[in-house]
């Protein structure tokens, strides 16, 4: 086997670019969240640092880096430090299979705008989502505090419950496309054929499950301040706390990217091919389309957070097991019947 160094170099550059964009995106999602929440609550929000407060994220990071890092006395030191790393690692790895655009030709070389084009893309996402539980469970346990443990347990129970309906609603898309590959799924969503139109119930169940998986309101019980102080990250300070914060917002962005890819047509701009533009401009337009769609989904996440109050815990569980799971099962059965009928007609 010969190692193709140029291919490896291209992949490394892609990884670096995507991670830089993702991390900058996280910083500015936090800023946007604060500004939008201020707007919704009739306040002004951070506007002092830089023009319109645009440098606020940098100041926040510097502040967090300067803080003292405290590990509780009875805590398991190694696992206490490992937990935030797992959270962030999982959040940053998921982005690897998301296609940001079609193939682009640079310097006479065809480059795919996706870090890893694997034939199990959908399963990869589900597998990493199921690994995300570890960060939260371990942080809750290792802090040796009752609030953290309760928060961690709540988060894990919630994530395990909602994983099921998430996976089942994804199966509808897999059935329609007959593949796990995300680039093929995007390619099949040309014209008006976005999966949100073909799979409306699946879209709703996936969206609700995505909210529950990212622990955002109305499903933010793991960090319900009134009951649990801060939930699983009560005992974290300084940069370790910042890592949990980073993981949460990275998860929001990655979920937005996944929703865009699977249900909103990914980088497909409807009927762009009919305009007759040069391929280079078309690729740039496709990447922009993807980014704009993803930004809209992120704004939707923020909007929901500051509009809808939190569920009670029993309501959350009964919604997950009694409504979401049957709805996604029904969606799966109906989809498979329709796919079967279309195949034999």
């Amino acid at each position, binding site marked *: 086997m010969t190692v193709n160094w140029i291919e490896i170099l291209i992949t490394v550059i892609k990884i670096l670019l995507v991670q830089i964009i993702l991390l900058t995106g996280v910083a500015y999602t936090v800023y946007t969240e604060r500004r939008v929440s201020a707007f919704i609550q009739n306040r002004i929000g951070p506007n002092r640092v830089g023009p319109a407060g645009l440098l606020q994220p940098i100041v926040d990071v510097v502040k967090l880096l300067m803080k003292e890092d405290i590990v509780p006395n009875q805590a*398991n030191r190694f696992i206490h430090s490992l937990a935030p790393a797992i959270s962030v690692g999982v959040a940053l790895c998921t982005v690897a299979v998301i296609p940001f655009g079609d193939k682009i030709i640079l310097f006479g070389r065809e480059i795919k705008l996706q870090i890893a084009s694997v034939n*199990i893309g959908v399963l990869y996402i589900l597998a990493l989502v*199921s*690994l995300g*539980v570890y960060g939260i*469970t371990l942080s809750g*346990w290792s802090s040796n505090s009752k609030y953290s443990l309760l928060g961690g*347990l709540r988060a*894990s129970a919630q994530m*395990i419950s909602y994983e099921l309906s998430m996976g089942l609603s994804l199966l509808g898309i897999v059935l329609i496309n007959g593949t796990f590959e995300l680039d093929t799924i995007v390619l099949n969503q040309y014209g008006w054929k976005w999966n949100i139109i073909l799979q409306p119930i699946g879209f709703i169940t996936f969206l609700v499950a995505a909210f529950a998986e990212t622990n955002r309101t109305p499903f933010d019980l793991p960090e319900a301040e009134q009951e649990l102080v801060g939930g699983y990250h009560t005992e974290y300070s300084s940069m370790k706390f910042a890592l949990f914060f980073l993981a949460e917002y990275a998860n929001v962005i990655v979920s937005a990217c996944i929703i865009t890819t699977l249900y909103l047509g990914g980088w497909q701009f409807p009927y762009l091919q009919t305009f007759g533009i040069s391929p280079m401009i078309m690729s740039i337009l496709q990447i922009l389309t993807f980014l704009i769609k993803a930004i809209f989904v992120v704004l939707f996440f923020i909007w929901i957070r500051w509009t809808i109050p939190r569920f009670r815990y029993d309501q959350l569980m009964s919604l997950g097991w009694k409504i979401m799971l049957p709805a996604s099962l029904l969606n799966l059965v109906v989809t498979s019947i329709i796919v079967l009928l279309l195949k034999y007609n």
Partner: protein
Amino acid sequence: MDLSLISILFVILAVISIFSALMLITRKNPVTSALYLILNFFTVSGIYLLLKAQFIAIIQVMVYMGAIMVLFLFVIMLLNLRDEKNLTESFSFKKLTSVLLSITFFVLIGTTFYFGFSNINPSRQGVEEKTVEIGKATFLGEKLFTEFAMPVLIAGILLLVAIIGAVVLAKKKFDPVSPDKE
């Protein structure tokens, strides 16, 4: 074997996997042991990837790391088992027998592999394409639901029985008059 990227990766993964397996059975803290088991599963799924079995690798991560080990950790954490000093027992006759038995077992396996496969010399041609084909989900799905449909159905029924049993066990008191109380 030539020193390609795949063999280097294999050696790294294999060393981590054996190391984590050893740590798993020697650590006293059950949570640490569970974490080493997770690391072990992770490296094994990496080895599956090197064998071009992407589907099996990801299923390994999803089922073992994502589902089973989460439940294991849950149980360990809720029982709050600290360092178990009682688990270390002194020399016993039972221990000696188990060591002897496991040595016999490994010798048997070793001889079987050594004499059973030494005279088979598989030609490498055509193997690469076949493994790529086998690793895909479509191939496994087709085989499972045509040739092996019956075992799949039986496994499904077994799992259903296990789920019903778990629900029955979880319901502590079965009161037919008022099922909501306790």
